[in-house]
């Protein structure tokens, strides 16, 4: 039987990750209040949120240490959902047939 979980993060590492997640969240909220950033808030927050997403997926959901197949199964859904969201928004933003 294959041992998927050869590496186990320790409780301490899990706690550290939780702290990082909290700090990133705090930063996100702080950036939200910096009105001078305008639309620049968007890419900054996307990067930060993607970071949180990746931390939870890779460490809490153990994708980093598991067989790559699980990553493929999950990432396919994430990527396709993202692409479809952008496609639909674009179709509603351009052209004469918006409504």
């Amino acid at each position: 039987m294959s041992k998927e979980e050869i590496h186990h993060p320790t409780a301490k590492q899990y706690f550290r990750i939780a702290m990082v997640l909290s700090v990133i969240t705090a930063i996100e909220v702080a950036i939200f209040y910096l009105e001078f950033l305008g639309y620049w808030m968007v890419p900054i927050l996307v990067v930060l949120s993607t970071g949180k997403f990746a931390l939870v997926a890779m460490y809490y959901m153990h994708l980093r240490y598991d067989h790559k197949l699980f990553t493929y199964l999950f990432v396919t859904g994430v990527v396709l959902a993202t692409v479809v969201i952008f496609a639909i928004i674009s179709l509603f933003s351009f052209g004469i047939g918006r409504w």
Partner: protein
Amino acid sequence: MSTDVHNNTHEDHDYTTTGLNHRKMLMWAFLGSDCMFFGALIATYLVYQGKSLVGPYPIDVFDIPVTSVSTFVLLMSSMSMVLAYAALTQNKINGFRIWMASTAIMGATFIGFQVYEFSSFSTFHVDIESCAEQKVKYGKFDDYEAELCSNAKDDHVETHDGLKPQTNLFGTTFYTLTGFHGAHVTLGIVWILSLLFLSYKKGMITPERHLDVDLAALYWHFVDVVWIVIFTVIYLFGVFPFPGS
């Protein structure tokens, strides 16, 4: 031909092509699929962002500090979930139970915040003593107040309608998206409590049967990860009118 049967604990030793567990693979495929579910709901929300014909608008009702707290709680619940699983694999059943209970409690707290938020949104009201004075005093309105004042016959404007799903596109899409997320969380809490409950029955939750908890944990983290997206895209970006509006 004889049909010799094995009980469930041997399931994990049966032949598989990849050496990976069937149920874990199923859970990951399911989570990939669930991304499309939330993706469609998020796409609907974003298409309609900034397009509501009447208020209240996100900027009127969103309370970012409060939602930040509930976001933090949900993130911490992921930590507690992963510690519950770790405890189980180390045969610390009491630790497992404590962490599972705290995950459920934090999940329920998150739902409590959602309920509070839904109810405060739906009873949101505006009371402007005098539109003329308001304008002079603050120099500007936000959209909703300007809209109310411009439509009003008197100088005094009061509205108790609140934000309901029927009110406008924002209400419709917001409640549906966050409502389905909340439903996912609730299902997760029920699952976690069921496992917690079962752990009192001898032999049901053991280090050998860690997969049962691993599956619940994956689901729980997914629900957390979806909220990470929702918090940023819906709440934090809620201040903008989006392109194309």
